[in-house]
């Protein structure tokens, strides 16, 4: 477990302040944030490499009691640390690097072979590629069987095939051994795939933390929404509809029963309907491109929000296609599979209907 409360640390002029989040025992946390947001500093502070100036940091292993880490040196925190550049000891062999912190050589060999690093054992450190260095660094950190594993962009230099294998294997060992993991990543897909908890960091502060799907679907601010890659962020005015459930909220009644309200949101020529706990007033509406469906004729759907528009741009990237629809001068981006786009026969200038559910509109 990693429990951080009001953590404060400083490196030069950079300040990490009032950082609060929890990665429960045996969970996988991901830290997301722009360059220079303090991600590495946060990991180094948790590791005890950078002194903690304030707040509270508690660490625990599987079956162990959480203990306050303040004043405990890095070597007694039972942590593993992987820097992006690996920092393998150049005077030692690959095998000696992996076994450096391992209590027994067999454990090091097992981790090395599971991660696919065993074939590198005979190689010199100076001859390893960036990806191979990362692989050996991950094996070295895990071979010491830490309670808490701190990973700073550990897969960034691995080739795609190896990345999938290593990521899966790290996840498996994390589950098997009950390690708590905190990983810094720039890759939102990776964050969604791996993370049980996502922590969004910027300027040395936590902007938002929670389950990754929650953070991605319900960003706390338009800045976070845009940072997380939400293409459709509209500024406008929200108005709470009457307390009685309006007749359009089939399917959203569950949300209404939890105390949420039906809301109308006007953003220029667009009028969106949503369900949430926002109050009336100025705000932003966020709709993830994956939530927008396209059809050539008005779709008989339960989706409350439906607009006619024209395709202004189509960009296919592998299996996914992003289509920008011009709705009375407002661009709305829809993400669909390239196959669906081909079946629809989408062409620039073509009239289409874009629809999305009230629940897909997040107000912040």
């Amino acid at each position, binding site marked *: 477990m990693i429990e951080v409360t009001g953590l404060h640390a400083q490196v030069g002029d950079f300040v990490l302040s009032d950082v609060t989040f929890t990665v429960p025992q045996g969970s996988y946390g991901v830290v997301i944030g722009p360059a220079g947001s303090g991600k590495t500093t946060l990991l180094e502070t948790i590791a005890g490499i950078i002194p903690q100036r304030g707040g509270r940091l508690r660490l625990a292993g599987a079956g162990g009691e959480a203990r306050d880490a303040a004043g405990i040196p890095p070597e007694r925190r039972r942590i593993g640390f992987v*820097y992006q550049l690996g920092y393998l000891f*150049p005077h030692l062999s690959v095998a000696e690097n992996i076994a450096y912190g391992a209590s027994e050589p067999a454990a090091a060999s097992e981790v090395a072979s599971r991660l696919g690093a065993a074939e590198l054992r005979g190689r010199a450190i100076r001859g390893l590629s960036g990806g191979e260095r990362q692989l050996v660094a991950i094996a070295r950190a895990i071979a010491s069987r830490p309670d808490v594993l701190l990973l700073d962009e550990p897969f960034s230099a691995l080739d795609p095939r190896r990345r999938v294998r290593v990521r899966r294997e790290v996840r498996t060992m994390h589950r098997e051994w009950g390690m708590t993991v905190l990983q810094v990543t720039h890759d939102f897909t990776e964050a969604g795939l791996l993370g049980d908890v996502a922590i969004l960091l910027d300027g040395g502060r936590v902007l938002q933390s929670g389950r990754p799907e929650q953070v991605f679907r319900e960003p706390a601010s338009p800045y976070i929404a845009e940072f997380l890659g939400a293409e459709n962020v509209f500024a406008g005015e929200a108005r709470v509809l009457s307390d009685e459930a309006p007749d359009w909220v089939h399917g959203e009644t569950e949300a209404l029963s939890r105390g949420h309200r039906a809301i109308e949101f006007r953003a220029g020529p667009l009028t969106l309907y949503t369900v949430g706990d926002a109050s009336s007033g100025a705000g932003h509406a966020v709709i993830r491109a994956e939530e927008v469906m396209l059809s050539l004729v008005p779709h008989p759907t339960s989706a409350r929000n439906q607009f006619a528009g024209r395709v202004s741009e189509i960009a296919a990237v592998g299996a996914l296609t992003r289509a920008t629809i011009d709705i009375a001068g407002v661009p709305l981006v829809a993400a669909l599979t390239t196959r669906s786009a081909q079946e629809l026969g989408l062409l620039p200038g073509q009239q289409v209907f874009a629809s999305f559910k009230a629940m897909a509109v997040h107000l912040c």
Partner: protein
Amino acid sequence: MKEAKTVGWRTSRCTGGVRDVKRSSERARLRWLRASGHTVEMTGAVPHRADGRRLHGAASVVAALLGSLCLLFFVVPIAQLVAGSGGAGARRLFSDAELRSALWLTALTATSAVILGVAGGTPLAYLLARQRFRGRAVLAAVIDLPLLIPHPVAGIALLLLLGRESALGRSALALGLRVVGSPIGIVAAMLFVAAPLYISAAHEAFARVDTRYESVARTLGDPLWRVFRRVTLPLSMRGLIAAAVVMWARSVSEFGAIVVLTYNPKVASVLSYDRFTSFGLGEALPVAAVLVMLALVPLILLRALRPDR
């Protein structure tokens, strides 16, 4: 005082440390500058095109001429000395017992000074490279101080501290240890003038080791002292050995401080001076030639210790 020893260093491809300097000739010179106590400031990257631009016409002729003159000024006296008296010097090694014993004493005292310098200087160099504390700049300046004072003055200062009239000298004498006029005095003089070179080069060797290697080792369960033994020391070993070689070479070539503390027994530098003043140039030349040839040993060692080898 420190500014007086600061040398600006402009190079086409360098903003960082010595290892970033691409050309080996530049690197070697930079090391020698540092080893001889200069603080070298990298003045930043100069655009390659601008720096590498060829000098044209008269300017290049003048530059080549001045450079050649400078080179000749270094090479000619030494070459002349070795060519003229190298053979005689080598023969003297077999026939001249005083020369042999002076060389033996020089090697022994220089090695003792290096052992003491490494033992005392390594922790100081590590402290300077790794810790940020109040008074760090003052400590660094104090360590550099012996490099800046004339060496006979250093000898006089040591005489005040260790001479028969001083409390320390009297206590040592009471224990049967004579400092002045003994090999101990020679070691003290060598240590005083050459240890700062070791500390400065060892400091640089430690500073070149990225602290993240040490951080990783600590997260893998090693306490500080074990990190030093398993990671820092092996990674800085080449630099530390080079630093010790520089200190040894400087100790061997020391004259000014030694001559004040211990004229007899004579180390090689004192012997060459003694032969010159007592018997003239003819007698001094073979001894001087042997010393020059011996100076090549640390030079070759330093080349062999180049980090990129």
